[in-house]
Structure formats: structure tokens, C-alpha cells
């Protein structure tokens, strides 16, 4: 077990190194991404402040609580940009180019390999920005989170991340069937954007998708509630439970999908 853990750490280290060095070769691209992240962050706060400028509340949420929700959203988004987006878009590319063959022939868990293979530093501004927003939102309010609140926050935000990861991985997995039917990369982008705008802005099919199938709001509000003293142990446990369900589904779905893999004809 210890040996397995050790080799996983070595592999992650090398993956981190190799993905950073390939990323740095495109500096201009990197600069553009950084600017867009900062723009996004400021833009979101501005839009949120417009909601509150008339003195109304958003679905019963105070201004400071909404800042926390937004902070969590941006924080999660940073993790997605750094950890999920590079790996899962490369999964889709591997399927399209037929180079998934090489990965399937490696003597290791392919889901782990595909999910950790590439990381990108460009989510870091969002992670830092989101984190600052969370702190700021808490300090604006009158409630001081206890140690238990913080632990619940940590577990729920990890759950949210795992749920997001699993959803993304499931969507990316469908590229095994639909490699030529739809561009899964675009679908992945779309789910990321979904949480940013009010759900009613979407056509009815997508609205159904975003509220029922992809629990975007659940992902941000539950951690926010725990840090604002509005949550409970049972809430935390159920979010952990939900996360483990989603994660198991993503694994089962992956091995199921591989039975149908025909490997792009070269």
C-alpha cells in the first residue's frame, strides 16, 4: 500500500513537471488566459453587486452570503481549470486521435492516468481569487465559523469537487461512442459556464439539464451554508455520500465504455 502510494506520488510529480513545461512553451496563450481569469472575477462581482444595488436579496441570500457562494464558485472553477479541463480535454483528444491505445496499454488505472495526466497553472488566479472572496464574504457577516464548520466546509467542498469531476469524466467518457457525433470538449465548456448565469437564461432542455442532472447550485450552496453556520452534520454526510455515488458511477461507466472502444482507425 505504501509502495503504491509512493509510486503514485512519483507519477504525479512527473506529470506535473511535464505538463508545466509543455504549458510554458506557449507564453502568449498563458498571458491571455491570465487576463481573462482576472476579467471574469471582476465581472462576476460587478454583476452580483448590480443585483443587490436596489436593496433586494437574491433568493433570500444576504449580500455577504452571496459573495461566499460566488467565491466558492470561482474557487471550484479554478480547480476545474487547473485539474479537470486539461486532462479531460486531452482524454477527448486521445479518443479522437486514437492515442488512447497507448494509455490503455499502461499497467495502471487508466482513469487515474487520464485524470491526472495534465495540470495547468492557469486556474491558480481563480483559486486564490475565489478563496479571498470566501474570506471576505465571511468577514462581512456577523457569524464566526467554528472549527466544526470549517471541517464541514472542507468535506463539502471536496465532495463538490468530486461530483464535478465525476460529471466531467462521465461526459468525457461518452466521446468513446460519439467521437464523431459531437465535440465533447464543447459540452465540457458549456457545463462550466452553466453556473455563471441564472438558470432561467437557458432554453428549456438545457434548464432541465442544469437543474436536475447537473446539480450546479447544490455544489456551491452546501459548502457556503456550512461556513455560514447554516448547515448540519447530516447535510455534510449526505454530500459526501452523493460524491461517492457519483465517483463510483464514473468508474463503472468508464469500464463499461471501454468495452465499446474500437480505437480510431489509423
Amino acid at each position: 500500500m505504501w509502495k503504491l502510494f509512493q509510486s503514485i506520488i512519483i507519477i504525479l510529480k512527473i506529470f506535473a513537471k511535464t505538463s508545466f513545461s509543455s504549458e510554458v512553451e506557449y507564453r502568449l496563450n498563458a498571458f491571455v488566459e491570465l487576463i481573462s481569469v482576472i476579467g471574469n472575477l471582476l465581472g462576476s462581482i460587478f454583476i452580483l453587486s448590480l443585483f443587490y444595488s436596489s436593496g433586494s436579496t437574491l433568493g433570500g441570500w444576504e449580500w455577504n452570503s452571496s459573495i461566499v457562494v460566488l467565491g466558492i464558485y470561482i474557487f471550484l472553477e479554478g480547480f476545474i481549470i487547473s485539474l479537470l479541463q486539461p486532462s479531460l480535454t486531452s482524454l477527448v483528444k486521445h479518443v479522437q486521435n486514437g492515442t488512447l491505445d497507448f494509455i490503455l496499454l499502461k499497467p495502471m488505472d487508466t482513469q487515474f492516468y487520464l485524470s491526472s495526466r495534465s495540470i495547468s497553472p492557469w486556474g491558480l488566479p481563480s483559486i486564490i481569487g475565489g478563496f479571498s472572496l470566501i474570506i471576505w464574504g465571511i468577514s462581512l457577516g456577523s457569524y464566526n465559523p467554528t472549527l466544526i464548520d470549517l471541517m464541514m466546509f472542507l468535506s463539502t467542498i471536496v465532495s463538490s469537487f468530486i461530483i464535478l469531476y465525476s460529471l466531467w469524466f462521465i461526459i468525457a467518457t461518452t466521446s468513446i461512442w460519439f467521437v464523431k457525433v459531437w465535440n465533447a470538449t464543447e459540452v465540457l465548456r458549456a457545463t462550466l459556464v452553466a453556473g455563471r448565469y441564472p438558470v432561467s437564461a437557458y432554453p428549456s432542455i438545457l434548464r432541465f439539464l442544469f437543474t436536475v442532472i447537473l446539480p450546479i447550485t447544490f455544489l456551491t450552496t452546501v459548502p457556503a451554508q456550512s461556513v455560514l453556520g447554516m448547515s448540519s452534520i447530516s447535510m455534510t454526510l449526505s454530500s459526501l455520500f452523493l460524491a461517492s455515488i457519483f465517483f463510483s458511477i464514473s468508474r463503472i461507466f468508464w469500464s463499461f465504455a471501454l468495452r465499446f472502444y474500437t480505437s480510431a482507425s489509423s
Partner: protein
Amino acid sequence: MISIDVKGLSKNYQIAEKEPGLRGSLKYLFLRTSREVKAVQGINFSINEGEMVGFIGPNGAGKTTTLKMLCGLIHPSSGLISVAGYKPQRRSPKFLRKITLVMGQKQQLIWDLPPIESLLVNAAIYGISESETKRRIKNLGEMLELDDELYRPVRKLSLGQRMKAELLASLLHLPSVLFLDEPTLGLDVNSQIRVRDFLLEYNRKYGATIFLTSHYMADITSLCERVLVLHKGNLFHDGSMASLTEKLTPYRSVKIEFSNLYPLSEFRKYGSIHESNDHYVHLLIPRERVIPNISEILEKYSVTDLEIKDPPIENLISRLFLKDSKK
């Protein structure tokens, strides 16, 4: 010891016919109209440990499909496979450590980075220690004549250098069964020879089983004593190169040079005349007549030089497949 054993192996691909647009996609989801392609149709063969076997056939014969099933990448539609004692489609880590797949048309090296980085990733995945990795890179690198190419980004390497680095990356874990799908694709003659020599040396050194496809006959003839010929998903031949030629042509080519001039018509009875000039005739003689006819010629005429050969295998095979596709 048997290394690869295949019984009644078949693979059918379902090819979905999708209409364009969202509606087409939805229709595709629920009611697929599909066509079946029978890529491999019930083939049987077995290969011993340490054997080098060539796998040839025209485009679309099902060679790549067969190799992918042998590696466990795709599931067979029916039939049994055993490779190194394992069932490939389970893709157990123990099995994967024993095999490798090299494909001329696809590459595993990371395009923007020097090959050495990809090698280190593989070393970590296979759990090869740092010192051992260094030693293997040095050894295999020497065998492949690779050196500072390993430290230049892959995209700046020539096709030949890239292929050699690709081989190194695929063999770092010293597999004992090698599946090679057109490993010399697009290489010039020198690089082809280098790759061939390397494979031979690897086979000698590690006693590895090598199963190789190529459209360059020279790869097969210089490496493999045994050859499998696949045609439209069926095994057309399994045996030596010589027996394949025998099967393909009832003639042998005989070139004779004479010191005197003889009328050409005298040679008609020995075989069909392929080519001739003043002191030279090139005959195609039925196999069973070769010995008697030549002894008669040697008796009757003053012969200065004689060459008996099988016609070039490329011509024979392409003729066979051409004939078949016309049917």
C-alpha cells in the same frame, strides 16, 4: 513454449450511419442504423516464444484489428486469445508489463517535449528505478543509435529519429512480446535497415516474441522465417516464406547466359520466355520441370552463367491480391 495462441478469432465492427445535424444525432442515439464490417473472420494460429513472425496482407485485410485484439485494446466478437498465458482483453497489469505495441501511424511521445520526458513518465508508470532507467536508456539508446536526440523536442526530430525514440519508449519496460504495426512506415531505406537490425538484436538479447506487420516486404524477408498472410479477414497462409512463394507461383525464374548464339525458338519447350537478348535468356519454368530441363540445357548448350530464383515476392503477392479483388 507457446507465446501467442489464437483460436477462431473474429471481429465485426458496427458502422453507424448517422445523418447530419442534431436530429440525426438523436436518431443515432436511439435507433441506430448500422452496417457490419467483418474485419477478421475466424483465424487460428499460434506462435512460440522468441519467434519472429511477419503478418502481411493488403490494406484493410484486418492486420491492425488483429494486433489490437492481441493487445487487449479491443474485444473480439468471438474466439479465444492467449498471450503470454493471459487473456488480453482483461488488460491485467501483469499482462501489460509483458507486452508492447508500436504503431507506425500513431505516437505516444509528447509532441512538445524531448523524448526523455516521456521516457521518465513511462519509467515511473512501470516502476523502474532511477539507476535502472538510466542503464536501459543507455543500452537501448546505443542499440538504436540515439543520443542527444533524446533531449530535443519531439517536433524537431526527423521521422526516423522519432520512430527510434518511439521504439525506445515502447521497450523501456523490456517486454517479452512485441506487437509492431508498420514500424518502418515512411522511413528511408537506411532507417528501415537500422530499425530491422535493432529488432533482430532485441530479439536475440531478450528472447522476445515479435509479431510484425509491414507493407515493405524487405522487413518481413529479412526478419521473419515464418509469415502469416491475411486476406479479407481470413488467413491465407501460415508458414515459411519459401512455401508461400511455392503456393503463389508454380514457376521458378531461371536466367541463363551462353557463350554461343542459339536460336531462341529452341528454348520454348523448356518454359515460357520472359526476357532475352543475344547471349541471354530468362525463362519461367514450371517447378517440377526445373531440374530435368536445366540438366538438359546444361548438356546441350555451353552455359557460362546460371541463376535460379523465385520471382520477387512483392510481385507475387500484389498479383494475388489484384487477381482476387477483380473477382
